[in-house]
């Protein structure tokens, strides 16, 4: 298959040591109208500390791929492994940010972040200090004791980002985390995420359908084909860091966007009239 060849040809030119390895992963759902292919033999590696985006149209199985990578959903065939160890149950060495904030309504912002600490038996004092630090880092200082219904959608998602980071996980999974937010809030959160990632250098798998977000944040972008999801190509983004809003309007950035849009046009995801 041409797409597997393409991804293979781009493989690991001077990439960091592999952390997450996905091999020939397929996912098929049984339905009453017959089987539905979500993913078709996807192979992928993410280096330690790498920011890897998975970009594709709705229904290409990118969220499914992320959930399988987290061990939360089982694969139909193929494997996911971390440092050579095959994953067959939910991973706990990670933080997850879902498309919706998934906060517990009966806990405050701080309480929601602390759930992660409680579940992992982290030292309470240290965790509290870290939680407040994280809240401040995403501009939520003073909102510690607010309940989710008192916060805006963007604020809730920020709380959920803090919750995914309090235990300094080696891996962060983000499933279209800004999909439900307005454009300016997205811009700010993208800047925040870059800043946080720059400090922590955790391995990030970032699922998105925003080309601009993917180019802005990523070391590499995995472009997926429409259903069933396969890898169309992998693009290395070699823009200097930290990336700025001004850079987003520059020719280099546009070049990467163009490259991705060309693939999406070629695959019929987009069509110009």
């Amino acid at each position, binding site marked *: 298959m041409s797409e597997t060849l393409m991804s293979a040809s781009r493989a690991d030119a001077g990439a960091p040591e592999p952390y997450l390895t996905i091999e020939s992963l397929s996912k098929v759902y049984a339905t009453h109208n017959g089987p539905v292919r979500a993913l078709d033999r996807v192979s992928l590696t993410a280096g330690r500390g790498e920011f890897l985006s998975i970009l594709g149209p709705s229904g290409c199985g990118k969220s499914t791929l992320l*959930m399988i990578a987290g061990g939360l959903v089982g694969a139909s065939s193929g494997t996911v492994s971390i440092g050579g160890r095959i994953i067959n149950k939910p991973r*706990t060495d990670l933080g*997850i940010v879902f498309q919706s904030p998934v906060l517990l309504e009966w806990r405050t912002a701080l309480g929601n972040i602390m759930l*992660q600490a409680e579940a992992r038996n982290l030292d309470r004092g240290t965790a509290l200090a870290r939680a407040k630090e994280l809240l401040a880092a995403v501009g939520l200082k003073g909102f510690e004791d607010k309940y989710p219904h008192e916060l805006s959608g963007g604020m809730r998602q920020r709380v959920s980002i803090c919750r995914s980071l309090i235990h300094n996980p080696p891996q962060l999974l983000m499933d279209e985390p800004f999909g439900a937010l307005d454009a300016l809030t997205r811009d700010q959160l993208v800047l925040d995420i870059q800043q946080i990632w720059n400090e922590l250098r955790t391995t990030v798998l970032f699922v998105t359908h925003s080309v601009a977000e993917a180019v802005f944040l990523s070391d590499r972008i995995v472009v997926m084909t429409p259903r069933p999801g396969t890898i169309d190509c992998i693009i290395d983004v070699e823009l200097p860091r930290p990336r700025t809003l001004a850079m987003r309007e520059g020719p280099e950035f546009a070049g990467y966007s163009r490259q991705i849009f060309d693939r999406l046009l070629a695959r019929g995801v987009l069509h110009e009239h």
Partner: protein
Amino acid sequence: MVSAEPPIKAGTPSIEEVEATIQRNLSRRETQARVSSVLYPTLLVAVLLVLWEALTRAFHIPQFLLPAPTAVLSSLAAHADLLLKHLWITTLEIAFGFGLSIVVGVPLALAIFLWPPFARSIFPLLVSSQAMPKVAVAPLLLVWFGFGLLPKVLIAFLIAFFPVVINTAVGLSAIEREKIYLAWSMGLSGTATFFKIRLPNALPSIFGGLKISVTLAVVGAVVGEFVGGDAGLGYLLMVANGSMDTPLLFADLLVLTALGVAFFMLVELAERIALPPHAKGATAGTMQSM
């Protein structure tokens, strides 16, 4: 080209002044809303009572047909001891019947949630038990358990436990998949997930069931007393009816209504204690807008 902001016209009130006015208006509106939410219904009831009193007097309606409010009140005062005695019996029946609904209903719901084969076996039974008119079972319960407190408690329980089971089971299973994923990713154990996430998530639904259940328990206790009672407010209703003492019947109804409301408010109080401020804030918002 970027143009500067236009100048502010002289004489416009400062933003601080506008702010103060708006804030003052809000608190005034809130006070008014709070007062009117008590005052209006009270006024309405008062008007209706006066109208009722006037009509019964003007048209000389016989007391056994429709007693005037004053007649009901004086009957209430005259029979206070009697009513209190029967009130106590009915209170016990409702409390035990409702209590039993919780003690049986919640574990049953838990078993239904935890063990699918059990859920599949018990569901048809549960549903058909609800289709069967409980009033029709009352005579059988009397044959089995005599005329004491027990058969009334059982009837109250039979009528009241279904919403507890259903709402608890539904509340426990209705949860976003992501919340469970989240628990897994944190390495939370099954027990911890249940107590930290699933149960609190189900509480609003459980309390919804309890509120339906407690009103049904009142109905059940009264029905039980109708069928074979020698005490209780339901029994007293029958007695008052039999002797055409309609003022006492109305007084009894009044007490029974107050009892039902009291039980309902008790459950609401428990809900407010069990559900921390997040829910209170949310419901307060909807109450204001109503």
